[in-house]
């Protein structure tokens, strides 16, 4: 089954929030329904990070913020050689961090 990152759609006003919040910023509603976020978008900014937390066993990580096609934004990993602000990207949900026995899944973006 394809994995998704979930946004949270306010039952009051329909706004989709990511990550989740307990109260809607727009209408103060408190009920939300999980909806899968789209996976395509454009790159807003990025960095190549060389000082990593101890559980990352790679020399560097490329991190970026992407604006998805529905307008939500998300922080994720980039697997792109020469990232450029404004470029089109497509995400996959993949393992992004392993702490002890716990694997976190998150969005990894590729070119195009």
């Amino acid at each position, binding site marked *: 089954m394809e994995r998704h990152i979930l946004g949270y759609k306010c039952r009051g006003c329909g706004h989709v929030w990511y990550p989740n919040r307990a109260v809607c910023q727009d209408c103060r509603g408190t009920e939300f329904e999980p909806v899968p976020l789209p996976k395509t978008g454009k790159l807003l900014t*990025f*960095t*190549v990070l060389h000082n*990593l937390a101890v559980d990352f066993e790679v020399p560097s990580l490329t991190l970026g*913020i992407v604006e998805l096609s529905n307008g939500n934004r998300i922080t994720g990993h980039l697997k792109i050689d020469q990232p450029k602000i404004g470029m089109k990207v497509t995400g996959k949900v993949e393992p992004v961090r392993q702490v002890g026995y716990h694997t976190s899944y998150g969005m990894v973006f590729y070119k195009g």
Partner: protein
Amino acid sequence: MRDVYVIGIGITSFSRLEYPLVEIAAYPAVMAMKDCGLSKVDHLFVANMGASRLNHQTGLASALVDHLSLTPVGAETIENGPASGASAIKAGWMAVASGLHDTVMVVGAERMREANNLETTDFVASLTHPLAEQIYGVTLPSLAGMFTRLYMEKYGVTSRHLAMVAIKNHNNAMLNKFAHLHEPITLEGILDSDDALTNNPMVADPLRFYDMCPVSDGGACVILACAEVAKKVKRPLIRLAGVGQATDTHCVHERKEPTDLLAVRGAAAQSFKMAGIKPSDVQVAELHDAFTILEIAESEEVGFFKKGQGHIALEEGYTSLTGKLPINPSGGLKAKGHPVGATGVGQAHEIVTQLRGEAGERQVKNARVGFTVNFGGFGNNVVALTFIKEK
């Protein structure tokens, strides 16, 4: 609401300190009590972020109140990430302004270098959103890197401007015996020479090693009092005239304009309003330059310069020690150091020192109005303080 004054100050070196955290906290507290001649206060607030995780100690305020033999007065530890210091000062201000207490001691203290660098990075990264940032390995430097890239793209800031912030603040720190770094740096050494990439490697592209503050141990203290006590004490009258605070989204990606620091803007506006002044009245400021870009961005958000113009003012020497508005005369977080929980109190220490005219070689001439910005998380909880010297 009563007027509130800073009557006593104290500080340790910001560096690596080989003594227990409670002693790092006690040293500036004793200094501040000697500074104003008080031997008792009505309450203690301690600003600290890392004791539980890095030093295996909780209840630090309770430990300190006894170590200083101030029992049975009350004491709390206040945490607001790297803005814990200014938040604790705000709490102290509230206690005095309300009439609840006449004197409140505020101590910021941190001992970070007991842990190794990877642990410290991971510890500070625990400020980021657990589910939407931390799982990706997002750290504060990485958020700063992404912010810087956009800032460069949008406003024409270059690596050269960032290096100029570092050089200015390193130069200022040379004149501050309490500063962590006493290391003169040059554009040649960190940017232009063949060795520059070795001397000054990329950390969070486009931010390089010398764009980052060091990891420091340190403590600082201010004692706050009502007018009646302040006037008895034989020290210059420095009033804590403005206290502002604002918060912003936890995830940086949720901010509509990612190059805006709305919490800085909001906190500063509140602080100036309470003090009854305009940004242009400020004569000396300590801004939260954990990353060089932040000094530039904050100098705009608080209203010293128009958005996108901070780097021009820097270039023109406007913010140098001898400029029209010296920023970070202490050396800033960049070179004075950044013991997270102590930083905001250290900023207040510098401003009071400047307004008293006791800053020696780094004295800003005739400064009467000073200002600080203390920045929690990546700008999601910001406290701004305004200090005015009374005649």
